[in-house]
């Protein structure tokens, strides 16, 4: 007992020391006590409502527990207070006293909080009125695909933080975990209707500064909207547990003036057209291998690992895999069921292996398939041309 007491004291000292060590850390940090600066009307509304509510509940907290603490000080046995005997309100005055708090609470619930909340909800759900453009967001393990139906642009956005930073092998960058290869670009001052869906499990698209968080549900469309008021780079991440790399699925939005946005659209279109043109020409193996390595590292290495060794028991190895080293296509040049090409194009139902048919271009697919068949000790020696992939679609 005494030993335990001493132990408690010592651990207490130890931890207070630790805390003291932490405090300077606190003082210099740019940590935040509240929502980040809002940049959309919804986010501004939400922050206002939130601040408003925090005041209301703080007042409630202080009043209720002020009364309780007053009672704990005054009505204690040690100061000789004699206990009363009442068990409920008696008489009109006491009933009034007992009922007033509930009237106040009703007022808080349905007027003070209820009315602003009502307007905020209506506003938040109004995705269609005066929408200037549409952005389609598709969640997939573990990246986002962005599609601009009006301009026919579609591309993937994956985290660009190097794995070595996560493994603490190199210093962490400023935007650690919140940086991507291809950010979404949106014009400021335009109402963007955002449609969300997913190809595998449920993901949630969240940018705190937009005040918007909406689930991306496989097989269904959900919608929300943003109207960004200031140019800038806004960062968020997936908010619904979606498997292994849920924590590594950031959202980055570049908000730019409209003229810049239009220029970006043109540039992106040219880029995508060039990539699509790649499927027309015949590639040599070295170029396919080089392109394939890029695709592999971005899309496949997360699960199958950089050296193709996989991650037992969920994510199979590609090195020496029967599927990868199996025949490429049938004698008639068609896809063989459950073959390497089938897996990459169509995925495997009920597993994290997704269909890449619609997310990668012909060239990327041809490149990554060729790469996998001729790397990690796999020596098939064969290759597949983008044109062949095109004909298999």
């Amino acid at each position: 007992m005494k030993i335990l007491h001493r132990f408690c004291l010592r651990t207490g000292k130890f931890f207070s020391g630790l805390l003291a060590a932490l405090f300077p850390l606190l003082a210099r940090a740019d940590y935040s006590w509240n929502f980040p600066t809002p940049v959309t009307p919804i986010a501004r509304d939400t922050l206002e409502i939130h601040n408003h509510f925090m005041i209301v509940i703080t007042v409630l907290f202080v009043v209720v527990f002020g009364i309780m603490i007053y009672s704990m000080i005054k009505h204690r046995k040690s100061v000789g207070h004699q206990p009363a005997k009442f068990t409920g309100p008696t008489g009109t005055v006491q009933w009034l006293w007992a009922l007033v708090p509930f009237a106040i609470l009703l007022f808080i619930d349905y007027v003070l909080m209820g009315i602003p909340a009502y307007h905020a909800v209506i506003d938040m759900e109004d995705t269609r009125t005066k929408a200037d453009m549409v952005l389609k967001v598709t969640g997939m393990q573990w990246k986002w695909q962005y599609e601009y139906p009006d301009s026919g642009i579609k591309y993937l956005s994956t985290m660009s933080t190097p794995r070595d930073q996560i493994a603490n092998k190199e210093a962490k960058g400023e935007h650690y975990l919140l940086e991507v290869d291809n950010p979404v670009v949106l014009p400021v001052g335009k109402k963007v209707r955002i449609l969300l869906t997913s190809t595998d499990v449920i993901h949630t698209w969240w940018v705190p500064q937009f005040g918007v968080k909406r689930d991306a549900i496989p097989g269904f469309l959900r919608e929300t909207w943003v109207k960004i008021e200031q140019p800038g780079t806004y960062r968020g991440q997936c908010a619904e547990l979606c498997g292994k790399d849920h924590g590594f699925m950031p959202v980055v939005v570049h908000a730019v003036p409209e003229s810049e946005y239009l220029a970006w659209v043109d540039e992106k279109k040219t880029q995508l057209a060039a990539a699509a043109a790649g499927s027309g020409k015949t590639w040599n193996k070295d170029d396919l291998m080089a392109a394939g390595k890029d695709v592999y590292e971005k899309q496949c290495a997360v699960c199958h690992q950089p050296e193709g060794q996989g991650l037992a028991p969920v994510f199979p190895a590609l090195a020496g895999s029967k599927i990868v080293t199996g025949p490429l296509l049938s004698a008639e040049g068609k896809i063989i069921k459950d073959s390497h090409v089938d897996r990459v194009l169509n995925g495997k139902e009920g597993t994290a292996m997704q269909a890449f048919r619609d997310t990668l271009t012909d060239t990327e697919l041809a490149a990554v398939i060729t790469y996998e068949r001729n790397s990690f000790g796999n020596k098939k020696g064969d290759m597949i041309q983008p044109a062949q992939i095109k004909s298999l679609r």
Partner: protein
Amino acid sequence: MSTAPSIEHDTSHGHHTEHYQGGIMRWLTTTNHKDIGTMYMTFALIMFFIGGAMILAVRAELFQPGLQLMQPEFFNQLIGVHALVMIFAALMPAATGFANWQIPLMIGAPDMALPRINNWGFWLLPPAATLLTLPFILALFGIGDGAVNTGWTLYAPLSVQGGMGVDFAIFSIHILGVSSILGSINIIVTIFNLRAPGMTMMKLPLFAWGWLITAFLLIATIPVLAGAVTMLLTDRHFGTSFFNAAGGGDPILFQHLFWFFGHPEVYILLLPIWGLIPHVLGTFSRKPIYGYKAQVYSFVAIGVLSVVVWAHHFFTAGMPVPALLYFMYSTMFISLPLAVLFFCWVATMWRGAMSFETPMLFAQGFIVLFGLAGLTGLVLADVAADAQYHHSYFVVAHFHYALFAGGIMGVMTGVYYWLPKWTGHMFSETLGKWHFWLTVISFNLTFMPQFFLGLAGMPRRIPDYALQFVEFNAISTVGAFILGFSQLIFAYNVWKCVKGGTRATDKVWEGAEGLEWDLSSPPPHHSWEVQPVIK
């Protein structure tokens, strides 16, 4: 009452202690409510430490950004199993342990009404807990891919994609559910049939009332959960498409079914606590419970409301505006009966003669911290603000204020309050007070920063985080370790109290009111062999 003959039968044989088998067989075969209560409590305590160890590993990983101790796969398993263990294997069994020990004592009954079902209800728990945690051990031997990795909510289609840990969790939930339903039936039958003559329903102790509502909620909602996880099982293995859009199903259907159980579950965990708190407040304020009837009606109202507000757990999944408004306003309405309870708790202390023994400290700590859970719950109900709070650490902090401060600290209130009655010894007040202060301070150190993390935009269930979240996470981890290790004081104090200590009087506490205090400490083997008559 119909139980009179059995009482005569019992008394004619004298005490049954001599018929008991010794050793392990005593515990395997016992049908005595106190033995079974003890087993429930012991089981809950062990699982509390197991679930706690899991989350300390998680907090250690989150102490610094980057991955230090574990890979995301294992992290995902720990968070989900932590929740399942704490809810189903620690809090719920602890509440059932209280029911077993206390309901017969408090309503003047010799035992629970269905003793063999009682025994079975308990012995289903160890296999269920084993099923839940076994995949961790199997994975060490290279079998399977570890435990369920979807979070405790098991959302489809992630859970359809998951490994065999999900199947283990499904069967574990089935068994735990059967256990809960058996326990609930027993409690309802006991309360309805074995009350002492003269104890009308409106004289029933509040603790029994709280448990009665819990029991009905369990019977109403556990089958829905069982159905949902069974549908998940057939989606996984038998080609159905309940939750698969490609086959005509809907992933959100799972969320509806899950939270139709999941929301009442919160009250299932809390109603027994709300039942026991007034007893403690009355005892240490030396004053009768204020607003007994109002509290009973509030229990009933909360029970009813709890099954019609479930969709507030997934506002961000998207639903029609009228549905959003309905679930928002109905959720806000729960604040009223809950406010009645807070009002009655404070009014019970008001103008009393308070003293601050350990159970009273825990009860008061419970009120304040659970108050924070209630108030943050009120703002969470707002659909617009919820878009920011949801899926973030704000929610994590909120429900830990509800389930640790509201649930676990409530259980500790009850344990400190009744332990002398159960063991016949007083526990160490000094250790109790140490335990209380360390718990309250470190609890706030752990979870208060999480509110701010959530507001700043940190999503829950991520194994690694961006650099603006570093400081609060470090503080939270330090708090969590103090919190975790402080609970060893509790275990030691209970152990010491079981082994010996100052003899407790029958009444134990100066201001104690209620039938259980008329019995000896510890109570006789068959509790009330002759039922007391209530005037």
